[in-house]
């Protein structure tokens, strides 16, 4: 098998006495949509934060395209092609939608130590921003200040911002969180389109969405990967059933 795009090996992260990430290893192949699911408190966001560089692991390693990125800061990982969306929407609230996306494009298009030329008149950046907004269906809201966008629109904007950096790998932390039914359906459709262009790691609670989208699923419970495989295998897996049906000591028993 070829070198995976993302390889996580024996990652460990503790918070005091709690092991939030317990020897997690997983591979994401190029072109794959890899979903990470698990009950609340399973350590999904902790794991994502270590992949993006917002949190240092205590041991283990993360590599992207064969390059060890375990100790690189977030902004360097981004330059290497890793983009993320936040579980709790994190945008520049007093900027317009287009400005939010254009800044992401700017981060990947030459130096930002330019002091005189009007950045909002740089055609390359504006075009990239508009293309990314169009991709997520927000083009008509380009010049609206983010604080005036609806929650659903902000979720889509998160995605546009991530796309604007032309990533190799997209880490999506619960993109459907807080979305209504129709909004969720639109998001699933959108992700179905995007996955043709970019590899995706998807952390999500919405099970129908996960099973509809994922090539592979890893199940995280109490910081450990208890199962990993294609959707059919995960559906049939006994450990997973127990974890989700609430018979949790069978699971904790492992650790």
């Amino acid at each position: 098998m070829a070198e995976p795009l993302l390889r996580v090996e024996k990652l460990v992260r503790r918070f005091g006495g709690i092991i939030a990430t317990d020897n997690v290893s997983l591979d994401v192949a190029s072109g794959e949509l890899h979903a990470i699911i698990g009950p609340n408190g399973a350590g999904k966001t902790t794991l994502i934060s270590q992949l993006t560089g917002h949190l240092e692991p205590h041991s283990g390693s993360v590599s992207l395209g064969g390059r060890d990125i375990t100790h690189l800061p977030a902004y360097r990982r981004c330059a290497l092609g890793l983009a993320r969306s936040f579980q709790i929407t994190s945008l520049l609230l007093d900027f317009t939608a287009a400005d939010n996306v254009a800044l992401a494009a700017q981060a990947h298009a030459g130096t930002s130590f330019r002091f005189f030329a009007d950045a909002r008149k740089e055609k390359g950046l504006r075009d990239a921003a508009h293309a990314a907004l169009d991709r997520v269906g927000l083009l008509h809201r380009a010049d609206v200040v983010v604080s005036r966008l609806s929650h659903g629109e902000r979720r889509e904007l998160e995605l546009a911002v991530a796309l604007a950096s032309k990533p190799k790998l997209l880490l999506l932390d619960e993109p459907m969180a807080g979305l209504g039914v129709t909004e969720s359906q639109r998001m699933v459709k959108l992700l179905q389109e995007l996955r043709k262009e970019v590899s995706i790691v998807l952390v999500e609670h919405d099970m129908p969405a996960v099973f509809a989208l994922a090539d592979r699923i890893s199940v995280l419970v109490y910081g450990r990967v208890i199962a990993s495989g294609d959707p059919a295998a995960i559906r049939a897996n006994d450990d997973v059933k127990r974890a989700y049906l609430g018979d949790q000591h069978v699971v904790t028993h492992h650790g």
Partner: protein
Amino acid sequence: MKAFTVSKAATALMLAGLVLLPLYSQLSGNVFILTLFTRIVILALAAASLNLIMGFGGMMSFGHAAYLGIGGYAVGMLAQEGVGSGWIQFPVALAASATYALVIGALSLRTRGVYFIMITLAFAQMAYYVASGLARYGGDDGLTVYKRSDFSGLVNLGNRTQFYYLCLACLFAVLILIWRIVNSRFGLVVQGLRSNEQRMQAIGFPAKRYQLVCFVISGMMCGLAGALLANNTDFISPAVMYWTRSGDLMVMVILGGMGTLFGPVMGAVVFLLLEEFLSQITEYWALIMGPLLLLIVLFGRGGIMGALGRAGRG
């Protein structure tokens, strides 16, 4: 077409007033008003520089007066040592301010929020005590500048009108520069960092580098104001670096409207005119000034510029 707004009209009126002031002073024979407004223009320049980091960059520096002192002492000390040329004094003032800003910024920007305010304040107080200890240059008593900076006959700083226009030109140049910076790639990154640092890191911007460069640019602008101030008063003393002066600059910025281009100028004009006229009425002018400022800040969200903007809409 952009609509005519009250805040734009007020700004235009203020700028026209500043440009025409020497004419009024000449016609009315009121020399004092020109001296007063020279000081106002210089401190407006300092407030505008503070606004660059505070209003646009979200860095609440409580030690900005230090640059007034550094710029001023660069002029005063060189003059004392027999270097009277402005071509040397002013670049030295800018370089010294930049160096100070680089060191202070590199240390202070490791902190955020209240800690940033306190650490910038602490450094400025250190600068104040260092200046007080300069026995050769007057120590506590300050240093008289016997000869104003000499720009080889190009402008005569001894001439009130010429000096006023030099200060005004510096203010306008700095405002234009700030305007360009704010809308540039660099400026958008700095403002993005004010808005949401985590997001900016996630899309690939190392925060500190941009903030530090912004901090240094702002410090140099204020150093320029310091060099002009020493020329204006023919005197420089540690008092200009005292923390209350840093507080005054902050008040001017907040009063005028943080994060607006002309707000700090408006704030400086209103603040210093109030101070001037209230102190003529009563010895206890601060008793009136304090509550007045409090009211403006509490009820005029966004300062004077914010209030004018609302008046234009409503």
